[in-house]
C-alpha cells in the first residue's frame, strides 16, 4: 500500500507523517510540490507546517503547486486525501473542502494535547475508530479557527460530515467546535489536530492518532 506525503517549501510534519505511515505498516512515498507526479500512490497526506511561509493566507499559494493540480483532479474522482493542519488549510483553499481557517480567536499560537471526539467513522481515514470515540492528539496552530457560512454549517451537520469535534472546550473559536470535516463523497478529510504526532507513547500524548494511518491501509485493502 503506497501512501504519499507531499513536501511543500515550509512543510514541517512531512517526515512525521511518513513515519506514521511506516509504523502503521504502509509504504511511505515522499512527493514533491514542484512535480505533478503522484508516483502511483493510492492515497495522499498533506502535512502540517507553514508552506510558503503562510504568506498571503495559509495554504493560498500551495494550492497552486503542480502536485496540487494532480491531487485536486484525483480527489474529485474519489482518491483519498488527508490534510493535517496546514494540509487542511490547503484543502479549503483548493475548495476540496468548504469553509476557511482563520486566526485563532485569542490570537495565540496554541500548542496543546487536545481531546477530540470522532464523529464520522465512514471515511477511509477514520474507519478504525468507534463512533463517538474520545481521543487525545496535539494541536499546534495559529490559524485553526474553522469558519463557514450558516448554510455550509447546516449542510456539514445535516450530512454528518463533521469528522472531529473539540471536546471539553473550544480552543480557538471554531464554529460548532469543528476540528475536522470531510467532503460529500467522504474521500477528502481535513483535520486541524495532528494524528501523526500521537502514534507512540514515547513522543506523543497517546497512540490514538495511529488509527488514521491504519484506517487508510485497511480501506485500501478492502477495495
Amino acid at each position, binding site marked *: 500500500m503506497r501512501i504519499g506525503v507531499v513536501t511543500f517549501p515550509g512543510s514541517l510534519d512531512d517526515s512525521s507523517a511518513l513515519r506514521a505511515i511506516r509504523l502503521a505498516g504502509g509504504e511511505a512515498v515522499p512527493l514533491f510540490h514542484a512535480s505533478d507526479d503522484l508516483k502511483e500512490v493510492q492515497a495522499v497526506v498533506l502535512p502540517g507546517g507553514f508552506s510558503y511561509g503562510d504568506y498571503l493566507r495559509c495554504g493560498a499559494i500551495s494550492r497552486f503547486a503542480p502536485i496540487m493540480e494532480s491531487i485536486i483532479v484525483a480527489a474529485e474522482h474519489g482518491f483519498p486525501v488527508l490534510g493535517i493542519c496546514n494540509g487542511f488549510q490547503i484543502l479549503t483553499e483548493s475548495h476540496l473542502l468548504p469553509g476557511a481557517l482563520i486566526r485563532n480567536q*485569542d490570537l495565540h499560537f496554541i500548542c496543546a494535547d487536545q481531546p477530540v471526539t470522532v464523529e464520522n467513522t465512514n471515511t477511509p481515514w477514520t474507519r478504525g475508530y468507534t463512533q463517538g470515540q474520545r481521543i487525545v492528539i496535539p494541536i499546534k496552530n495559529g490559524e485553526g479557527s474553522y469558519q*463557514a457560512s450558516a448554510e455550509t454549517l447546516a449542510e456539514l451537520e445535516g450530512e454528518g460530515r463533521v469528522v472531529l469535534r473539540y471536546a471539553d472546550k473550544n480552543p480557538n473559536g471554531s464554529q460548532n467546535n469543528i476540528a475536522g470535516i470531510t467532503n460529500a463523497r467522504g474521500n477528502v478529510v481535513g483535520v486541524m489536530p495532528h494524528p501523526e504526532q500521537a502514534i507512540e507513547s514515547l513522543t506523543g500524548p497517546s497512540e490514538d492518532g495511529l488509527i488514521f494511518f491504519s484506517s487508510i491501509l485497511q480501506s485500501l485493502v478492502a477495495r
Partner: protein
Amino acid sequence: MATIIVEVMLKPEILDPQGQAVASALPRLGFNFAKSVRQGKRFEIVVDGEPTHAQLAEVEAAAEKLLSNPVIETYVVKVEK
C-alpha cells in the same frame, strides 16, 4: 506608470481577532476615537502606462482566484495615478 490597488477585507460577518486586538490597544495609548477596527490587506500592483480594461479584468480575476479567499473575504480594485 500606474498603480492598481487591490484591497482585501474580511467579510463583515467573519470575526476579525486582529482588528479587535488593535481596537483594544488604542484606548490604552489614550486614543479613544475608535468604535471598532477591522484589519485588511492592500496590494499595490505597478503596470506600464495606463491600465487597460483587459488588464483590470485580469487583476479582478487574480483578486478572485489568489489575492482574496471569496469564502471569507471581499475585495475592491482601484487605479492610482
